[in-house]
């Protein structure tokens, strides 16, 4: 699986990709093509490289090398089209040859910066001095390019004559002949240079990809520094201390609202999350999904301490997927999604995140469906988190409850904006089979119609 395929999940990982500070289009492509890794040694190696990159980014005495490197990456062009032509035995034109020469020269400058940052082992760049030499027949060392006189014995004399005629306004017919001949020679030289460069195709492709990888790596380092991300340990369960959701944290900070990170630990099997409305259950699912994807894509995670259990993938059913154009109702599209999730879980070990399943149908059948989903997932090796408002489900799976409203706040005037100050988002083990009943209270805090609330309250009392 690749990062670009994970963007479709509703775990909120897209936000992380959006805030990545990449310098080049090639780097962005490298990021989207990067793998969701499932092998612990591979991930540990990837995190080692990230750690090295973070050290280099924070290396103030060698800041100029870091700036040089970022600048090189900014100048990196995506030459995949040119390399494809080269591999397919198509002759390159002057502009393409120049681009290859520039890449060789760029990789030399980048290599110097990488050495200066002591990242030589982390970001080895292939040696491009041979292909550079092919495009630098006069050994100028400069990354300019044209079909140099020295490429063909006929060119110097031809151009001397051309120059003389052009500057003196000589015979147009002769000039036209010379230009045609020059063009012929140049095409021949381009073909020859393409042939000479062809054996270096792999080196050149590696150079570009390695530089694109460097771009992605440095962007991950920037991300880790900016958000104070932590390197996770690999274990047989998932555990976070002070897990946060970057997107929600950012939004809360912008609105001067408090953000409360949470501690959570989950193992194979099903864990039910209950709690009042607005207690952050959906955000919690998204935070766990985002952190898992980040970790397995070689990033550090938004927490103070983290252990991740490597899974084959992250599958989610979060949010309302109602799609009139599909002819599917909310319930239909949700149940199809959940059915697909169950299918995948029979083949692979996944992280499964399901937000309030069967909430859009009648409570009798809805509850029965939730019970069945839990029973099936309990028997499979996946790690499952399900949020629900249904009580009395009669299962013995683990339950975590969001603590929710802080007691003793009843008399303080609440507003939809200030409500988050009175909610404790932390989780507590819950042995009972009940769920909190705070829907009416929240509706009243939100300033909903009084008659609606009082009538509903009467219904409950009867």
């Amino acid at each position, binding site marked *: 699986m690749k990062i670009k395929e994970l963007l479709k999940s509703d775990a909120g990982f897209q936000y992380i990709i959006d805030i990545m500070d990449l310098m*080049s*289009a090639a780097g962005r492509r490298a990021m989207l093509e990067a793998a969701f890794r499932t092998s612990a040694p591979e991930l540990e190696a990837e995190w080692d490289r990230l750690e090295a990159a973070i050290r280099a980014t924070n290396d103030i005495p060698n800041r100029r090398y870091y700036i040089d490197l970022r600048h090189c990456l900014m100048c990196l*062009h995506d030459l995949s089209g040119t390399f494809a032509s080269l591999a397919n035995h198509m002759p390159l*034109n*002057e*502009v393409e040859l*120049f*681009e290859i020469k*520039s890449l060789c020269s760029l990789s030399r400058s980048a290599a110097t910066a990488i050495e200066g940052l002591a990242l030589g082992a982390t970001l080895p760049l292939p040696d491009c001095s041979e292909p550079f030499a092919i495009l630098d027949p006069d050994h100028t060392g400069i990354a*300019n*390019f*044209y079909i140099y006189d020295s490429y063909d014995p006929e060119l110097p004399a031809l*151009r001397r004559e*051309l*120059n003389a005629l*052009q*500057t003196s306004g000589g015979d147009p017919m002769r000039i036209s002949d010379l*230009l045609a001949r*020059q063009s012929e020679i140049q095409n021949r030289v381009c073909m020859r240079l393409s042939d000479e460069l062809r054996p270096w195709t792999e080196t050149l492709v590696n150079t570009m990809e390695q530089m694109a990888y460097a771009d992605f790596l440095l962007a991950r380092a920037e991300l880790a520094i900016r958000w104070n991300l932590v390197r996770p340990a690999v274990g047989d369960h998932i555990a976070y201390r002070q897990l946060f959701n970057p997107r929600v944290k950012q939004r809360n900070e912008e609105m001067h609202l408090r953000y409360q990170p949470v501690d959570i630990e989950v193992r194979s099997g099903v864990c039910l999350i209950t709690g009042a409305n607005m207690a952050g259950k959906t955000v919690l699912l998204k935070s766990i999904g985002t952190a898992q994807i980040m970790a397995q894509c070689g990033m550090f995670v938004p927490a103070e301490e983290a252990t991740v259990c490597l899974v084959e993938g992250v599958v989610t059913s979060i949010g309302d997927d109602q799609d009139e154009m599909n002819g599917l109702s909310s319930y239909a599209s949700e149940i199809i999604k959940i059915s697909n999730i169950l299918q995948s879980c029979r083949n692979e070990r996944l992280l499964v995140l399901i937000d309030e399943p069967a909430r859009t149908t009648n409570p009798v059948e809805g509850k029965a469906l939730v019970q069945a989903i839990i029973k099936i997932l309990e028997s499979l090796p996946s790690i499952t988190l399900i949020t629900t408002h249904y009580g009395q489900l009669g299962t013995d799976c683990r339950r975590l409850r969001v603590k929710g409203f802080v007691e003793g706040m009843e008399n303080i005037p609440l507003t939809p904006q200030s409500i988050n100050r009175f909610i404790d988002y932390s989780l507590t083990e819950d042995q009972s089979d009940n769920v909190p009943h705070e829907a009416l209270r929240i509706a009243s805090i939100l300033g909903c119609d009084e008659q609606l609330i009082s009538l509903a309250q009467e219904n409950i009392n009867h």
Partner: protein
Amino acid sequence: MPFISEILRHRSLSIVGLEKNTGKTVCLNYILHRMNQLGVHVGVTSIGVDGEQVDSVFATAKPEITLFRGTHFITSEKHYLIRQAVSRLVAVDSQRTSLGPLVTAEVLIQGKVLLSGAATTAVLKRQIQSLDSMGVDISIVDGALSRLSLASPTVTDCMILATGAAVSANVKQLIAKTRHLYQLICLDEVDETLRNRLSIIESGIWAIDNDGEIHDLEIASVFLIDRSEKDILRFGHTLFAAGAISDRLLKILAAKGKDITLIARDFTKIFVTPEVYVDYTRRGNRLMVLQRSKLIAITLNPTSPQGFLLDSKSTCDALSDALQTPVYDVKKIEQ
């Protein structure tokens, strides 16, 4: 050697035509020739071969210009590969146009080149900066079609306006059309304090009251304004339009009252027809600009594409009289 020394006091020059076939290329070739004789290091680029509007057949029909040794130029990959000058590539831009990426090269042996360039003024500004960093003494931008945006003082320091028989074969009409644009180019500037305060505003129509306070009239665009806009003058008679100024806006203002001063960013943002402008000013209103473009010269091409030929001397004199500024027949200067 008319107007060359004047050009050399600036870092960038745009050549814009009132119409196609008004002799921009002849003018550019003349300037390049003179600059070469003077040993000036020139950078050349263009604007306007944008893929949406101009097909490559049309683009290749663009006249070629002759570039001399040492000149830096920017063009598209496609046009670069069919050049007749011998030149050395020094940079390739990562942004692509419909004719491939823009490339920068230095001429080794003089010859003809087709210019194509940035599609937007933002990219053009970057290109001028990059030519600057390569050490050119002056950057010259060849206008395409009847685009004027490149002559904005925020893009190029000075401009040449090319006019001619292609605008109209009737000398009176030719003069009227040229004079209209000339008047807009020569609009008075506001004082520096006001300019600094207004230039940071990006959109909308604003009023400046007698105490110099600036008020947003909360009209997002001149295209949304209509006659029911009753109190557009509630803060006073001085207005600033951050975006384009259209006939519609001038008509509404002309109907509202007199002694109105409407300020535009620069003349390239003013899209008004001569009739509406005359009616607006006749009522005692006026237009001003934040920044005026430096007009170096007006050139005339007496030949129209249909083959119609005006008398060069009398037309130049008539235009010169009407505009009170020198007008040159470039083909004659060249000889």
